């Protein structure tokens, strides 16, 4: 399949002028003969010449052959000849290169003259010349005719469309379009665009290829229109732009698969194509039909794509002050003077902006709410209200549908819109938007107006029980609807009747029974009594049976042959499809059936609640389970820790045992053989006994000293009385100095006594050391610890055995282990307190001893001084103590003593 390359490659053909005449004759026959056989013969003859006179046949016969392809489709024989001929023309043989430029030019002229000379051919040549300048040649003629041929071949034939695309047609066509000056180009550009449309329309495979080949990005430049676009808006330019816009729409058509459309929409935003289109939208001087088609194109580029919709919402018109594009467009929609198609396009754009766009819906509704109304600038909401209540029924319809699109699938906005209040004529209180709509409805305006309002109301209250309640709350509404439905009205009113039935049906279906007078049941009874079930259902059916219904149901774009046909909105047809069945069912259902259904519902609900209960139970149990699992984990971890402590302690105990054995051995070697089998506790006992003995000794010493004290006290008393007796006769002055001396002497005595004390202390140390040696070679503390640990060992080895078993069997053993550990600890504590008590006792007795010694020293001093006095007084006293004291005193003291002695002697 090389023909496409041949066509687009612009190869030149052969050059033998001899056949020209024959070919011309044959062409005439093909064009003018009314007999198929005659035409067939002529084409066969052309075929036979086409190899030799490729160029001639190509320039002269192409158009005729193409016409044959169109008009004689039914005859395969002539088709075959025509195609073969075309193949021969297009198939570029290398040997035909010798063709010179001047020759080519000649041929082109010849071709132009000898051809049919139609406007179209003339245009095409002109276009080619304008685009390619002097290079235009016969090759171009063939290229241009090739475009026409391909247009014919690809029309409605997906297989050929794909092959042509595979042969890089997109690239070539886009190149030609660029070369020819895009929209400013001539009919060649138009032909390229038409071929592109053929290749892409309804061909998802080719669309995908086009997108994947990044050709969308190349479309962007088509829409870069200069401020002063050269040559203004020629008919050709308008046609070209029209086709270009159509090509964009083909790629994002709502009938394409949502995924494909979405990805094309994305790349159209990313490459700036959408932005470019919006610039045209807001530009001045754009012809109305281009503007209309641009609006339709923008609509489909943004439809359902949040990013593109958000961008669109941000576009401003370059007015002063800048106004949102949406507002500017809505102004046109509700403007009677604007062309009908433009108004439809704006409505479509608005719909596409709100399609699946909750954010956009909220923004539009908010411009109507009292809190956000901006008195300064014109808002979308104001324009919609204006349209809703204007005298122009087309505006009424458009505004109703537009507002309905702000509510689709958005119960939030349905509720919000209930808040909207409208100011009426001066002095009267404001009324709700809902009320105003029903008021106008009942005033019997034009069918178009009422249809629009009824569609708005149906959309508004469907799937929104609160809105249903609001609607029913107005006492006039139900009687109005029943009257409308039950009456026998003319053909014109049938659609209105159907819509009234739908509205009443919605009031039943979405009723939450909150109004006593208008419960589901009561409304159904009302239908039965006032209208009749069958009649109601028949009237409801008027909607879908309407001749314009199915057309609107086909595609989202509102397109009507005349303004009067503007009755159905696409989204609304979806709502009808959804509700017609369920409403019919709901009305037909007897109250008994409904009761049954209610019961079933109730049992189902009960079931549900049981299931919910069970679910909760399971959830609770699940939580418990997890909690228990966690506990188990915790316990296991604790057990492991305990195990570790136990092993540690066991090894410690083993260590101590070993130490103990070593000590025991040593003890045995030290000669305490008789004590070889002394119990561990015995060591302590022994030591205690030693300490007690020592204590006893110290106590007896103490008692001894006390008796001495008492003796000496009595002695002092007796001596005092003696002194009292003798002092009467002595001189007081000398007595004083003597006393001083006596004090000095006593001080000396104290010194000696102190020495005695230190001696006693060292004696005591020695004693202690002796005690230590007798109770083994280890230190006192070690022994205590050892015994303590031995004790623990005995208890704990037993305990450990038990604990190990218990731990293995159940986790309760942990508590016991702890208890037992505590027991062990308390024994240790008891032992420790006992030990410290003993130590305290020892230190107490030491202190006591010290006190006694001090006391003793005091007494001695007193005794000494008294003795001295007695001596001085001439009495003879035993002097051993005195002497002893002097012997033991320090040298310093000696000197002092000598001095003292000297003085005393």
């Amino acid at each position, binding site marked *: *399949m090389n023909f496409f390359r041949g066509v687009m490659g612009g190869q030149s053909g052969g050059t033998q002028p001899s056949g020209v005449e024959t070919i011309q004759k044959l062409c005439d026959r093909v064009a003018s003969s009314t007999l198929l056989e005659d035409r067939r013969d002529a084409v066969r003859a052309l075929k036979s010449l086409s190899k030799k006179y490729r160029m001639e046949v190509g320039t002269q016969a192409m158009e005729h052959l193409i016409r044959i392809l169109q008009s004689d489709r039914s005859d395969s024989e002539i088709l075959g000849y025509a195609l073969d001929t075309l193949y021969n023309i297009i198939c570029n043989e290398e040997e035909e290169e010798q063709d010179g430029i001047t020759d080519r030019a000649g041929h082109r002229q010849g071709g132009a003259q000898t051809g049919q000379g139609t406007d179209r051919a003339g245009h095409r040549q002109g276009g080619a010349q304008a685009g390619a300048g002097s290079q235009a040649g016969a090759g171009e003629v063939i290229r241009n005719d090739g475009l026409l041929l391909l247009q014919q071949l690809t029309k409605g034939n997906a297989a050929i469309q*794909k092959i042509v695309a595979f042969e890089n047609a997109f690239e070539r066509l886009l190149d030609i379009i660029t070369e020819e000056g895009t929209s400013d180009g001539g009919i060649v550009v138009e032909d390229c665009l038409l071929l592109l449309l053929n290749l892409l329309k309804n061909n998802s495979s080719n669309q*995908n290829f086009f997108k994947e080949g990044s050709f969308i990005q190349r479309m962007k430049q088509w829409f870069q229109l200069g401020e002063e676009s050269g040559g203004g808006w020629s008919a050709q330019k308008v046609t070209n732009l029209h086709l270009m816009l159509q090509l964009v729409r083909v790629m994002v058509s709502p009938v394409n698969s949502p995924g494909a459309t979405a990805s094309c929409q994305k790349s159209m935003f990313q490459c700036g194509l959408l932005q470019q289109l919006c610039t045209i939208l807001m530009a001045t001087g754009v012809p109305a039909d281009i503007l209309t088609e641009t609006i339709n194109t923008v609509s489909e580029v943004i439809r359902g794509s949040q990013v593109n919709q958000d961008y669109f919402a941000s576009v401003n018109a370059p007015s002063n002050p800048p106004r949102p594009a949406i507002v500017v467009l809505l102004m046109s929609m509700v403007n009677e003077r604007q062309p009908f198609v433009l108004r439809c396009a704006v409505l479509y754009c608005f719909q596409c902006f709100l399609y699946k766009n909750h954010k956009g819906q909220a923004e539009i509704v908010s411009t109507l709410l009292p809190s956000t109304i901006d008195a300064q600038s014109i808002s979308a909401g104001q324009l919609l209200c204006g349209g809703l209540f204007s005298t122009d029924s087309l505006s009424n319809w458009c505004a109703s549908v537009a507002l309905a699109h702000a509510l689709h699938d958005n119960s939030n906005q349905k509720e919000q819109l209930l808040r909207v209040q409208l100011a009426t004529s001066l002095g009267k209180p404001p009324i709700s938007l809902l009320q105003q709509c029903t008021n106008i409805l009942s005033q019997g305006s034009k069918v178009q107006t009422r249809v629009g309002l009824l569609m708005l109301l149906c959309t508004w209250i469907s799937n929104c029980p609160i809105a249903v309640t609001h609607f029913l709350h107005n006492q006039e509404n139900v009687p109005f609807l029943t009257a409308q439905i039950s009456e026998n009205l003319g053909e014109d009113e049938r659609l209105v009747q159907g819509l009234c039935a739908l509205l009443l049906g919605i009031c039943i279906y979405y009723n939450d029974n909150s109004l006593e007078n208008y419960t589901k049941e009561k409304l159904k009874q009302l239908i039965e009594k006032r209208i009749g079930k069958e009649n109601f259902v028949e009237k409801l059916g008027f909607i879908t049976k309407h001749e314009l219904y199915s057309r609107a149901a086909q595609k989202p774009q509102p397109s009507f042959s005349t303004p009067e046909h503007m009755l159905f909105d696409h989204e609304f047809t979806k709502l009808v499809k959804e509700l017609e069945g369920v409403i019919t069912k709901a009305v037909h259902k007897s109250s008994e059936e409904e009761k049954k259904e209610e019961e079933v519902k109730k049992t189902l609900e009960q079931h549900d609640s049981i299931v919910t209960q069970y679910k909760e139970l399971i959830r609770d149990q699940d939580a418990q389970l997890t909690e228990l699992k966690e506990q188990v984990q915790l316990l296991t971890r604790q057990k492991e820790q305990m195990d570790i402590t136990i092993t540690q302690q066991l090894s410690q105990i083993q260590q101590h045992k070993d130490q103990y054995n070593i000590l025991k051995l040593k003890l045995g070697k030290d000669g305490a053989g008789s004590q070889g089998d002394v119990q561990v506790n015995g060591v302590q006992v022994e030591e205690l006994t030693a300490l007690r003995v020592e204590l006893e000794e110290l106590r007896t010493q103490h008692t001894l000293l006390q008796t001495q004290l008492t003796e000496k006290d009595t002695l002092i008393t007796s001596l005092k009385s003696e002194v009292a007796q003798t002092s009467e006769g002595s001189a007081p002055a000398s007595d004083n100095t003597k006393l001083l001396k006596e004090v000095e002497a006593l001080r000396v005595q104290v010194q000696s006594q102190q020495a005695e004390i230190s001696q006693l202390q060292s004696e005591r140390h020695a004693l202690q050391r002796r005690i230590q040696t007798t109770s083994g070679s280890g230190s006192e503390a070690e022994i205590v610890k050892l015994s303590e640990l031995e004790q623990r060992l005995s208890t704990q080895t037993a305990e450990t055995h038990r604990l190990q078993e218990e731990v293995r069997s159940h986790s309760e053993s942990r508590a016991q282990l702890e208890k037992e550990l505590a027991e062990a600890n308390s024994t240790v504590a008891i032992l420790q307190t006992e030990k410290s008590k003993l130590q305290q006792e020892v230190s107490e007795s030491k202190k006591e001893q010290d006190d006694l010694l001090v006391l003793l020293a005091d007494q001695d001093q007193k005794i000494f001084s008294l003795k001295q006095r007695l001596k001085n007084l001439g009495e003879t006293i035993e002097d051993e103590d005195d002497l002893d004291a002097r012997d033991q005193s320090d040298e310093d003291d000696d000197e002092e003593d000598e001095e003292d002695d000297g003085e005393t002697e």
Partner: protein
Amino acid sequence: MAYAYLFKYIIIGDTGVGKSCLLLQFTDKRFQPVHDLTIGVEFGARMITIDGKQIKLQIWDTAGQESFRSITRSYYRGAAGALLVYDITRRDTFNHLTTWLEDARQHSNSNMVIMLIGNKSDLESRREVKKEEGEAFAREHGLIFMETSAKTASNVEEAFINTAKEIYEKIQEGVFDINNEANGIKIGPQHAATNSTLAGGQGGQQAGGGCC
């Protein structure tokens, strides 16, 4: 978006061997259990990376049914790579390989890289064609070979990527004339400027080869 090279592939083989499923698995990572007969051809595309270079694969999945043969033949010439697929659970699809290969060799450019694929490797219990047979056929005819499963995605990536690697190597060796788009290879915008001289050199090499 920007790519260094663009390769065109075709997928050929008897009807029902899983050509469309292989493409779907490669582009969308999905499997389609129902046989949706391909009418004519279907297009798919994906970007891969070889040697740190972005390579765009444009793939045409052809109809295996006999009646579409004349249409599908139109795609051979413009392709740089072909996946020739048979079904390991149906011997007849293996037996037809010779015809397919003849057809491909006749209509394609001589440098087209052909990857032989034994598909449905997940259906081991129903296997009718041994892997060794596929390997032998490939060796005999100078093809690369792989067994794949469009259902489990086993080897699907590899099949497409290895074919691209082979083409890429041929480009490096100067076998392909990358300036002729008719060979199913295109230099991407990312590459075009820097590669023009290289491409020229390769073109010269090729011309030299032609002389010998």
